[in-house]
């Protein structure tokens, strides 16, 4: 099966065609306010007072966003990550992104005022979005897609239908040579032994168990029953009783294919196939990380049984990657149909099988890959993003 995408110099294929301005802050924001087709990250995680490991995570995230196939070209400016750490040096970020062969401009001049840089950046960005707009979509095989999933506000419909539908789509994409990412390490605790059995080799199996163990050790060090933290109260109100139950339902979204490796937050996979990302489940964090890992489309598989009514669902947490909202919960779909792109509660209602619902989702993903906007993409609201950092703030 095929979709219409934008070919990049490194042979990757974008499903969107943005000019990215990093690392955020007033220069990036002002350029994005003035120039159509630009995107920037909104985050307070600028690296100051952070460990080397965490600064590398910030750098990997920014570089990964620049390398993402949905990005046509990039402006990196030198104000914002102002603490002078070498990992976050403006030229380092630009050089790494430029390895993709795409255009990367460094906006940095020690003698220029910030307002001068904004003026130069606006003119540069206007030229770059026009250049990007000359690209035409072409037909590509679905093996060029990388899709990532988070299951959130899970309830028991997630484990029995919603996640299995995503798992079927993942199996299909991987069998066709594509790439699929899943993560949320806390939510494999109690199910990690099942994932480890699906690892391609012993080394990957150990990495899966290690990720779960380290996360559980951090949880236990707090001295609380994890059930007071995760499953979150909305999960419990939706019928989920323990973290183990949540995890066993959550892993269904990974399908049944072999797991090729464990990635760090924002790390790019070395090959195709299914990967586990060792990351936190937070909505403002995980989609950013998936985008940095190279996902072109992200899925939020919503349970929602324990949610208050009439909530506006998060919109731009993937910000350079289209976010698709899915649910299997009939009651939730009725309440949020203006926000939800795909409904698999048909299976619970007896109108469709999991296989039929999954094929429908696969077609929708290809349609979005070809340019159809998701419901979240229609909103101009910009959510903040949280980079997944682990060490103490010092």
């Amino acid at each position, binding site marked *: 099966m095929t979709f219409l995408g934008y070919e990049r110099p490194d042979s990757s294929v974008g499903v969107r065609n943005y000019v990215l301005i990093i690392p955020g802050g007033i220069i990036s924001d002002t350029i994005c306010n003035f120039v159509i087709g630009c995107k920037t990250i909104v985050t307070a995680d600028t690296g100051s007072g952070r460990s080397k490991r965490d600064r590398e995570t910030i750098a990997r995230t920014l570089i990964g966003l620049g390398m993402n196939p949905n990005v046509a070209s990039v402006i990196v400016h030198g104000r914002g990550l102002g603490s002078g750490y070498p990992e976050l040096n403006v030229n380092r970020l630009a050089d790494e992104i430029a390895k993709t062969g795409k255009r990367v401009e460094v906006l940095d001049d020690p003698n220029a005022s910030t307002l001068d840089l904004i003026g130069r950046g606006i003119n540069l960005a206007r030229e770059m979005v026009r250049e990007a707009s000359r690209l035409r979509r072409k037909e590509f095989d679905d093996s060029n897609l990388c899709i990532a999933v988070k299951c959130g506000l899970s*309830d*028991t*419909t997630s*484990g*029995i239908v919603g996640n*299995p539908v995503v798992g*079927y789509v993942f199996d299909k994409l991987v069998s066709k040579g594509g790439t699929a990412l899943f993560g949320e390490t*806390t939510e494999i*605790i*109690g*199910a*990690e*032994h*099942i994932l480890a059995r699906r690892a391609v080799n012993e080394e990957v199996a150990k990495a899966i*168990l290690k990720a*779960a*163990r380290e996360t*559980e050790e951090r*949880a*236990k*060090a*707090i*001295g*609380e*029953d*994890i*059930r007071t933290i*995760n499953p979150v109260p909305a999960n*419990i109100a*939706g*019928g989920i*009783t*323990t*973290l*183990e*139950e949540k995890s*066993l*339902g959550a892993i269904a979204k990974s399908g049944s294919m072999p797991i090729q490796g464990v990635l760090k937050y924002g790390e790019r996979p070395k090959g195709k196939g299914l990967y586990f990302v060792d990351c936190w489940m937070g909505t403002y964090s995980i989609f950013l990380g998936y985008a940095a890992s190279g996902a072109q489309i992200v899925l939020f598989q919503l349970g929602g*049984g324990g949610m208050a009514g009439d909530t506006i669902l998060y919109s731009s947490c993937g910000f350079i990657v289209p976010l698709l909202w899915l649910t299997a*919960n009939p*009651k939730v779909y009725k309440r949020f149909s203006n926000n939800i792109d795909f409904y698999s509660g048909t*299976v*619970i*209602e*007896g*109108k*469709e*099988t*999991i*296989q039929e619902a*999954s094929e429908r989702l696969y077609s929708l993903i290809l349609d979005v890959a070809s340019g159809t906007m998701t419901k979240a993409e229609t909103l101009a609201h910009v959510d903040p993003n949280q980079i997944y950092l682990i060490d103490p703030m010092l």
Partner: protein
Amino acid sequence: MDRSDQLSFSSGEVKIGLAMKSVDNVATVLNDVSCGDKILIKFADSTSVHTIVAKDNIPFGFKVALRNIQKGEYVVKYGEVIGKATEFIGEGHLVHIHNVEGLRGRGDLKMVGEKI
């Protein structure tokens, strides 16, 4: 044989409970169930069905005990341990945080058994 891909859950008048594996001792109800209702239990991994009577009100998506579960006995869903009963749970009763505890991530306990 895993037949979950082909699974579809017709509801209509009959209250349905879905157990993911034959070894499970709980099922997820797919309708709002009232105390005294009959629940038709289906299994995702087999064609067998049986009926139990609800002994509690059980909301959509919550779990019902398929048989008596002793205090301290494992609660099993997806063919895996999801926790331990903190009290006796009779067949047909609601199974949730009031009568089940998790075994993992228990920072509140001194001794924790890792199931790896």
